[in-house]
């Protein structure tokens, strides 16, 4: 190791002499005498142990947590036993969150790209420089394209997202894309088309539950994942339809490996039986619904025998399930779930679910499907200026733009002639549709988008067809990413801003709707380890720099500009965030103190709320104000107003398998795999292949196979199992990173976003996750 020279060396040689005389600049000294300055060096007294209530951010569920902090170091995250949303549980991810702030790979300081994009050459800059840089780029882009919407803003939901929208609205771009079209847009759209809202299921009291394609045991959602096993009433029956034998299927009384894309046929047949056998809730249908006769006419042909031919579930059993469902109504649940679109007719599938619930009167009563209630919070009444140079969304007129990514089924009579031209494609304007947005940007139609902001979203990993996303990035003149870790998306950015973890920051209060509504919030449990900031501080910092650039404000009235400064800056962002939070709960005396103590707040002790819409005079948020079995608005837009069954336009070829997506309980999409405590549970993904098919292909357990879709091919180890239909294959998301991610994940398993094709659901604009067909070959 060390040569001879080393061992016999005397340090007093001439070599040292010159070194002795050097005098370094005193200002560079960072290790200083403790007495020289005083500051709060230790955030907690020595040896002190504290339990601080807060809220988890490892996935979307926002479970209550109590953090055990010892001498300023987070030791353990415990569940909050009092939290009614999470029912006192904390999953593997939530527990593993305790490693998050101490991950050495986290972003530590603002980084500015100095090399080529994606080359990985960065320099550290100060937050001041970063804010100036952002403001300048925004101003330049606005000047150059004379259109504020030339900068797009992507984000994912989270407590700090509202401050991201302070930034978006202060700049005035209309182009925002949220996660929903990768997530649950179609589901919300489908249920809302009937009830006007997206409801929850009262699994604690339901006697009969049908779950289609929801793996509640692994894809954890609180409180459902808790309720469906822990609090399930005695005798409750659970029927699960899933092409895979999931952990949820293992809990089911009956599991049907339904043929993919035919769930709707199954539910239509249930409706057929219930109507033809006169099992529906006459009074409810009469009082609350609209369009029953049309529905009745539609489903005449959808007999159980017809459905059996489609979905491969015996007609007898369909009949039996229909009768049982009706028998237990209203304590019957067809589970709404929370999942992304699987098929192009996804909205209609969900509409069918909702109609089944509606005709049986399984609505807004104990044990049924119940609309979410919420706790009213005090809003900050800020009005953002109206900017003249804000053009409408780039994907507003999506017709024509998306023809490449929408399957032939748009030609199907139920959908009419094409995509809707109205924003009914989206949950709301601000959600957008990733698929059509990306197509529009790629085609510069109707105008160029040249700036891209990203707040904690990772489109490079999460949006199907990665190559298109990267091509879109190439068009961008400025990309800024606000993140905790160097995500694949951040890697392509020009400027990366490090966001504090949820354990280091104050977050505003959030109202979580549900049968038992609750408000959740976060407070810092540890001091930030590095020079990171929250979106609240980042928005404030950037907007302060923006107001210094006059050209950014030349398309609004000067008076509006003054009002803006007063309301937004002085009124909100310049104040401590704690004041913002206190303002939110102003109406509830003592609520803020309770939040600090418990990490959540409920005005009425978290009682379940039923029946708010069970009033003949109640106006549902539909066109007719009734529960619409026949959707008037769809009719208006040229869409089929009833859930007519349409044959799939694309089916797997003879050698092809349908690629399925799914989740595990120990990872959140693509974001947690490099957490060592989660990594050790699963070190790589494997592709599920049915035993009989594997035999045909000559594949045995653990063999390397090549998976090939239209857009990509991946290699992965085979998991030969009885737990999947012979015509499908599956692997879980989050592996197969191309880049040397953590050494553990690098090139382990295969990537989902790489293999998936981009196919859009025709109404909600969601990405369809089960429309990729692959071939499998043994290597």
């Amino acid at each position, binding site marked *: 190791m060390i040569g001879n020279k080393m061992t016999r060396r005397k340090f007093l040689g001439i070599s040292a002499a010159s070194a002795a005389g050097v005098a370094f600049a005193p200002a560079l000294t960072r290790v200083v005498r403790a007495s020289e300055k005083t500051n709060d060096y230790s955030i907690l007294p020595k040896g002190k142990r504290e339990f601080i209530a807060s809220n988890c951010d490892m996935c979307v569920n926002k479970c209550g947590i109590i953090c055990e902090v010892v001498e300023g170091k987070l*030791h*353990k995250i415990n*569940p909050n036993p009092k939290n009614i949303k999470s029912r006192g549980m904390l*999953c593997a991810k939530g527990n593993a969150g*305790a490693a998050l702030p101490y991950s050495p790979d986290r972003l530590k300081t603002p980084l500015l790209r100095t090399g080529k994009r994606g080359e990985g050459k960065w320099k550290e800059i100060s937050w001041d420089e970063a804010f100036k840089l952002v403001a300048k780029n925004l101003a330049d882009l606005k000047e150059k394209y004379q259109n504020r919407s030339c900068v797009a803003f992507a984000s994912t939901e989270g407590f700090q997202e509202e401050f991201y929208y302070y930034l978006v609205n202060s700049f005035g771009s209309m182009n925002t894309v949220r996660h929903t079209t990768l997530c649950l847009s179609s589901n919300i759209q489908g249920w809302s088309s009937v009830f006007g809202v997206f409801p929850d299921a009262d699994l604690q009291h339901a006697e009969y539950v049908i779950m289609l394609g929801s793996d509640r045991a692994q894809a954890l959602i609180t409180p459902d994942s808790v309720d469906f096993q822990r609090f399930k009433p005695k005798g409750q029956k659970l029927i699960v339809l899933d092409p895979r034998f999931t*952990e949820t299927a293992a809990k089911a009384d009956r599991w049907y490996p339904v043929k993919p894309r035919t769930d709707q046929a199954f539910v239509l047949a249930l409706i057929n039986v219930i109507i033809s056998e006169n099992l529906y809730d006459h009074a409810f249908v009469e009082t609350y619904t609209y369009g029953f006769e049309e529905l009745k006419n539609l489903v005449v042909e959808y007999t159980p025998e017809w459905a059996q031919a489609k979905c491969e579930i015996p007609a007898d059993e369909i009949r039996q399930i229909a009768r049982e469902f009706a028998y237990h109504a209203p304590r019957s649940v067809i589970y709404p779930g929370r999942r992304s679109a699987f098929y192009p007719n996804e909205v209609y599938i969900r509409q069918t679910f909702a109609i089944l619930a509606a005709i049986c009167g399984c609505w807004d009563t104990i044990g049924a499907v119940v609309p979410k209630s919420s706790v009213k919070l005090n809003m900050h009444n800020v009005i953002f200026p109206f900017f003249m140079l804000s053009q409408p969304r780039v994907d507003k007129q999506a017709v024509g733009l998306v023809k490449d990514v929408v399957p032939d089924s748009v030609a199907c009579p139920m959908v009419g002639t094409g995509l809707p031209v109205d924003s009914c494609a989206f949950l709301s304007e601000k959600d957008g549709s990733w698929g059509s947005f990306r197509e529009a940007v790629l085609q510069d139609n109707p105008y160029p988008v040249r700036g891209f902001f990203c707040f904690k979203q990772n489109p490079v990993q999460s949006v199907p067809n990665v190559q298109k996303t990267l091509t879109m990035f190439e068009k961008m003149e400025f990309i800024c990413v606000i993140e905790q870790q160097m995500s694949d998306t951040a890697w392509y950015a020009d400027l990366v801003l490090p966001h504090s973890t949820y354990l280091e920051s104050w977050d505003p209060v959030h109202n979580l709707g549900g049968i038992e509504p609750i408000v959740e919030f976060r407070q810092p449990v540890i001091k930030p380890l590095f020079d990171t900031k929250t979106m609240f501080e980042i928005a404030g910092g950037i907007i302060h720099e923006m107001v210094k650039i006059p050209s950014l404000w030349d398309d609004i009235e000067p008076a509006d500009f003054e009002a803006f400064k007063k309301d937004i800056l002085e009124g909100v962002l310049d104040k401590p965030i704690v004041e913002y939070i206190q303002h939110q709960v102003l109406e509830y005396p003592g609520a803020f103190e309770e939040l600090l103590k418990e990490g959540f707040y409920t005005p009425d002790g978290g009682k379940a709320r039923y029946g708010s819409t069970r009033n003949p005079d109640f106006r549902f948020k539909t066109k007719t104000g009734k529960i619409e079995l026949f959707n008037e608005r769809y009719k208006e837009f040229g869409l089929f107003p009833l859930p007519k069954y349409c044959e799939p336009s694309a089916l797997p070829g003879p050698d092809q398998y349908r690629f399925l997506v799914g989740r595990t309980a120990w990872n959140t999409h693509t974001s947690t795999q490099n957490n060592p405590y989660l990594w050790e*549970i699963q070190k790589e993904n494997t592709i599920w292949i049915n035993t009989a098919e594997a035999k045909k292909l000559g594949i045995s357990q653990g063999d390397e196979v090549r998976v090939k879709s239209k857009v990509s091919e991946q290699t992965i180890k085979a998991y030969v199992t009885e737990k999947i239909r*012979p015509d499908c294959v599956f692997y879980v998301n989050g592996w197969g990173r191309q880049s040397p991610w953590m050494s553990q994940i690098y090139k382990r398993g295969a990537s989902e976003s790489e293999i998936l094709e981009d196919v859009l659901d025709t109404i909600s604009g969601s990405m369809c996750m089960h429309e990729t067909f692959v071939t499998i070959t043994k290597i």
Partner: protein
Amino acid sequence: MADKQYAIVLDTKKCLNCKACTVACKFENFVPVGDDTYRIWVTEMPLQGKFPRLHQEYQPSQCQHCENAPCEKVCPTKATFRTREGVVLVDYKKCILCKACMAACPYDARFVSDLHEAVEKCTFCMHRVSEGREPACVETCPTKVRVFGDMNDPASDAARLLSSRQHYQLKPEKNTRPRLFYLA
């Protein structure tokens, strides 16, 4: 018999195989990341049946805190001992790492800890229990598969479950008399 007698009753039918318990245990007890270093685990029992008639169970497990603990018998230095509450613990300072307990344990519940430089295993989170808190795995479980309690207290949930439900223990033929009870 005034002493508490701790036990864990498991309703494995409720287990989601979500691994929350195993991660919670690692943080709570400073158990390092590693393939051999774990105190508790969740086994996916063999899949039964043929497609599409399938059945599968999940079995969380850990040190059984046997009343007749083989590990305690073979420990030459009394490093492994049972408390008055029936909890089998290891006094790390007394462990000579002869690993006889690892060979003797029919449940493969023990492992060598670099941190303690001793053989370690589940402690029923006695440091939490003494503060009136539940073991970490019990507390974090979404569906409350595990119920921790005092068998001597008829009012405890654990005792109630034991008296009202059929249950079994793992490897009864070894006559270890575990303090982990699985509901049938």
